[in-house]
């Protein structure tokens, strides 16, 4: 009933396929792409994800995501925040709120924004405003660090 095709498929699932879905809301960078490794910055620290990584859920912090393709080349993106899911079948969903390739970001603009945000911190009055400015500072610091 199952035939040869079924058993062949079973045998092929030796190493789970490591597929990556990486995108932000109006642009998808990798869709069902087979990659070697992904480095992500999360709230609990930066870690790299290889095939057959243990399933986990994480939340991203502002930082650089590096995707290592099968052919060895690496693509870097700056993400503002988002979530990452590693499932049991070794598929990874990296959903970023905003993500841009590093070469689209401008160091000078980031530094200017960082200074402005740091000066706003002094004048921030209540908790919510302070938290917003802190997020601004974090993001800009990460951009500057990534581009240097």
């Amino acid at each position, binding site marked *: 009933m199952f035939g040869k095709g079924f058993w062949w498929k079973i045998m092929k699932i030796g190493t789970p396929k490591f597929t990556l879905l990486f995108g932000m809301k109006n642009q*998808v960078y990798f869709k069902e792409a087979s990659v070697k490794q992904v480095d992500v910055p999360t709230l609990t620290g930066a870690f790299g994800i290889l095939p057959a990584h243990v399933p986990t859920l994480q939340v991203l912090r502002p930082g650089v995501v590096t995707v290592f393709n099968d052919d060895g080349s690496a693509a870097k993106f700056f993400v503002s925040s988002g979530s990452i899911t590693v499932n049991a079948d070794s*598929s990874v969903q990296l*959903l970023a709120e905003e993500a841009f390739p590093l070469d689209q970001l401008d160091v000078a603009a980031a530094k200017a924004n960082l200074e402005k945000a740091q000066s706003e911190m002094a004048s921030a009055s209540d908790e919510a405003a302070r938290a917003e400015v802190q997020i601004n500072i974090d993001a800009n610091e990460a951009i500057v660090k990534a581009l240097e």
Partner: protein
Amino acid sequence: MFARTSALVFLPQCGQVRNMATLKDITIRLKSIKNIQKITKSMKMVAAAKYARAERQLKPARVYGNGAGALYEKAEIKAPEGVANKHLLIGVSSDRGLCGAVHSNVAKAIKAKIANLTGEGKEVMVVNVGDKLRNILQRTHGSYLLLSCKEVGRKPPTFTDASIVATELLNMGYEFDQGAVIYNRFRSVISYKTDEKPIFSIDTVANSENMGIYDDIDADVLRNYQEFALVNTIYFGLKESTTSEQSARMTAMDSASKNASEMIDKLTLTFNRTRQAVITKELIEIISGAAALT
């Protein structure tokens, strides 16, 4: 003499005699229908432009939205059966009409779900995005409405909109266990289908059986993840909904323009016939008048 009386007897007994429409009436009617046709044609063009843009933005949003729901599918997260859990329905539609059956489809699905769930004794609340939905649901199911959002549909929806909805919803403090976002999934230019995407609360996800395999999760991370996933699902519903709405409006305005053209054709024929009848009548009057004098 005999013939005359029999003719009198055979007069039809109609209670209300309709005067034949005068030329003026037909002209007025013709002008107003032509105006309506112009309006519906231009609405169709506008809807076509908006639809093209919405469909373009839908492609990546779809991939993103499916990715967001992947966790729920792969881990097969379900709320515990049998417990009286609280449900939350988020109906996604818009403020504007003239778009076919878009709003009533979502409202019908919501009403059916409410009937099901209350039949099973579960508690339900509804959040609706879009004024039209609120109008439909207010009359019969007003007690279930938790939150209502306006000013939807004028501009294409953004992630910010979805996050505003999610923030307000979470601030309301309604502790739901599971729920669904009910929206119109876009299939093609002429067809869409009312569909739903599941949403779960933090506790449901944390206590679900398959979550054990996911390593290194603490409450904070899970809460952030859940909130992000909620916004994603709402965003996905919004995007699909706008695309379906614009395509439905395009189709509706198209058939309205076609109907208007048909009416214009028929009225033009009636107009010509009436015009010829008026001319004939005048001629007869002139001729019989002249005959009477001679």
